[in-house]
């Protein structure tokens, strides 16, 4: 009895230690960036590297602020992420619902086509998309990038949300229709609220994709609508590599995602564990 108890306690400690080690392994690069960003500029590329700053300094942040308009590009990133996610979610959830409920082979094949669009490497899409955006006169505008990110995200949103909709019994919307709804109001008033946890999880993934997207942001913007990933990368150029400023920008860049993740973390977990929507 005693031995059994002690053994299980030991086992628990070992498990916890293992989990911590694992988490540290994943967090290490991020922690390095954050710690480095607070080192004095001279220490950033010191060799051998040291883990902790010798003293706390915001030198890197000041330098970054003078080297690039971080406020502007962060704002652009926020607007583009928010706008493209909103569009992708609005259209994608409706399409996902249609896919989840339809038996039509046409809808099914549309769905597969949409997924195929996601499989094509983005680089191959770059030239035609650049052409279209230029033709529309939307180069270097937030709108242009919003539309492109929304389009890139749409297949993913359709695919992921249709899975959540499939888990909701069709009885629910039929009950709503008998209760005086039409197909659309049954969707907005019954199905959407029930699917919220799943859709929140979907929205997080879509937002992160847009927030981190680099290739199209680089191609389609240069001054006005430049997003943070592009701005940060400009610190690295043929003349100099501003490592210190980059760590500072990188740290700042992470903050909004971190806040978002903390706010919606519970919802994501709920979303992952959905299926339990039985009334």
């Amino acid at each position, binding site marked *: 009895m005693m031995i059994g108890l002690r053994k299980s306690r030991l086992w628990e400690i070992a498990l916890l230690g293992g989990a911590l080690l694992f988490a540290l392994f994943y967090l290490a690069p991020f922690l390095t960036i954050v710690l480095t960003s607070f080192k004095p500029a001279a220490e950033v590329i010191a060799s051998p590297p040291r883990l902790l700053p010798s003293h706390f300094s915001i030198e890197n942040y000041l330098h970054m602020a003078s080297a690039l308009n971080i406020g502007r590009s962060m704002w652009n990133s926020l607007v583009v992420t928010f706008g493209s996610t909103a569009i992708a979610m609005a259209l994608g959830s409706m399409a996902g619902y249609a896919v989840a409920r339809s038996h039509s082979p046409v809808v099914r094949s549309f769905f597969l086509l949409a997924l195929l669009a996601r499989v094509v490497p983005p680089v191959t899409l770059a030239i035609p998309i650049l052409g279209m955006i230029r033709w529309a006169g939307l180069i270097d505008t937030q709108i242009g990038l919003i539309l492109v990110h929304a389009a890139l995200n749409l297949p993913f949103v359709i695919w992921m949300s249709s899975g959540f909709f499939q888990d909701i019994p069709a009885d629910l919307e039929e*009950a709503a229709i008998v*209760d005086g709804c039409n197909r659309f109001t049954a969707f907005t008033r019954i199905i959407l609220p029930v699917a919220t946890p799943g859709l929140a999880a979907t929205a997080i993934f879509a937002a992160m994709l847009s927030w981190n997207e680099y290739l199209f942001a680089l191609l389609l913007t240069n001054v006005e609508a430049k997003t943070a990933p592009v701005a940060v990368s400009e610190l690295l150029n043929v003349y100099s590599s501003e490592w210190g400023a980059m760590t500072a920008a990188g740290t700042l860049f992470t903050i909004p995602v971190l806040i978002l993740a903390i706010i919606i973390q519970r919802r994501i977990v709920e979303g992952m564990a959905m299926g339990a929507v*039985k009334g």
Partner: protein
Amino acid sequence: MASIKLANISKSLGRNDILRGIDLDIGSGEFIVFVGPSGCGKSTLLRLIAGLDEITSGELLIDGVLANGMSPSDRRVAMVFQSYALYPHMTVRENMSFSLKNARMDKREIEKRVQEAARSLDLAGHLDRLPKQLSGGQRQRVAIGRAIVREPGLFLFDEPLSNLDAALRVQTRIEIARLHKSLKTTMIYVTHDQVEAMTLADRIVVLNAGRIEQVGSPLDLYNRPANLFVAGFIGSPQMNFISLSTTGPGASREMVLGIRPEHLSISRDEQYLASFAGKIEFIENLGEQVLIYVNIGQDRPLVAKVSPDEDFALGQHVALKMEHGRAHYFDGESGMRLEREAGHG
């Protein structure tokens, strides 16, 4: 209190004919029960009447008005689903008032109706709970409450009691019967359960493979089944069937004799004026009665339902006697009922 008329209704999905040529008149205030084996189209027929599925051909009239293209809410039907289909994100009160809000009813009237329904269904203390905070029986009552508050012309129930345990099922069955008595609204009720069908129905509709086999009062179906299918489907345990061939004045004829287990009596005395004799093969004790399986040389034993006071043992030789006037005769080929005169051969 709607009256319903189904005229030659068919439903096909792709190449599958799910319902064929359904004709049925339902009077205002009637309690109609659909029974039939799994997959025979009961739910489909109910959904056609509700307006959830489209009718492929034929006409549906509600109160004499063609309703084929009407939306479910215009048909003034309320439906109770097998899964209850309560809106999980809404409280009991919101669930019950949802349809009334959709109809833009006055707030005070909504509250009044909800309170009334909640009181009659013993839900008054639970109005602010979510469905997941209720027991199965309470959810079931919310589903019924959601239908009642609308004061519909027609109630549709699709196996509403199948998720409840036996005791609760009996209790809710009685509640539904009482509800029908007090509201006098037309009701259509789908069930697998013979007892529900027999106790609730004014008339039972027996469906099989997308067709109506017979429509009649519970006693009609029990006493005068129109064919072998209905004879075998209504009554538990199943009616015994014995193949006969008679040689009449003309040609010989294949017939099937049907006799219900409760209409067979057993005697150990083989001299007894018996219809059949055989050996007891199996005994099933159900408590209030005992089923005796007697091998009379056919592929299936005859089943007799007797009182537990009678004492029989496996292997015993017994004689079976049919209660007078309780035998049914069916044509061997078509399976249709033959009138009794034809049977006296």
